[in-house]
């Protein structure tokens, strides 16, 4: 029965969105992290989603094909008193933009919630299907 497949489809979306929430959490945790070199500064990470299609081109779910690092350059700031400052007195801040991350989090949350609701609806439909002719 093809209703069973919806559990796989929605389940793949749940796991993809939780990967996204995970990267958002680690980005926010490292938002204020500084480094004494530009290379050492934390770069925001973002998952890349791709649809899983069956032979007929129908979506069978979604998967995370990879996690890419932010291409933006870390922000240097002149803080001579900072223990991590280099010889010129600069520290490098991470590329994380907390506002972007929060907006991303809200999007991930709503998609996650939609998929949970979908699983709930399908579960009810399946239970009712099993009840056919039982009365």
């Amino acid at each position: 029965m093809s209703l069973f497949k919806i559990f796989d489809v929605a389940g793949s979306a749940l796991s993809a969105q939780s990967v996204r929430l995970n990267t958002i959490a680690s980005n926010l945790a490292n938002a204020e992290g500084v480094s004494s070199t530009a290379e050492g500064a934390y770069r925001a990470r973002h998952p890349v989603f791709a649809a899983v299609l069956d032979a007929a081109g129908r979506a069978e779910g979604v998967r995370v094909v990879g996690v890419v690092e932010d291409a933006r350059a870390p922000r240097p700031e002149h803080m001579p008193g900072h223990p991590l400052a280099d010889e010129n007195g600069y520290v490098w801040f991470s590329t994380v933009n907390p506002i972007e991350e929060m907006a991303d989090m809200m999007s991930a949350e709503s998609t996650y919630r939609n998929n949970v609701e979908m699983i709930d609806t399908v579960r009810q439909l399946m239970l009712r299907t099993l009840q056919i002719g039982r009365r």
Partner: protein
Amino acid sequence: MHKLIDAALGIHPQAIEAGARRLELLAGNMANADTPGFKARDIDFRATMQSLLDGPTGATATLRRTEAGHQDAPGTSLAAEPLYRVPNHPALDGNTVDTQLEQTAFAEASVRYQASLDFLDARIQGLRKALRGD
């Protein structure tokens, strides 16, 4: 005998199957709400039911392989094929999933599915009553 029961159950078993297929497709859309470049698809339910009613004698299209590289395609009715949604406002990343639209479509499809289940249930109750004779 088989035909008799099939006739008694009417179109509802097929309606349930088509409904489940539509729900699956909508679930695929919802799962890919944030996938760049993903194009939302849906089934034309009326056309699908019509093609089921017409049966194998209805308008079907079979694809023929004329080149070595062509993929095998089972002979399917054109009407049952999922179509691409025309987006109201496509996202910059090429995604055409409108979450609100998909959610309402899913709710509608699940109500239709439940209605078909109820109709089928009523038919089965009727058959039972007739067999028991009480």
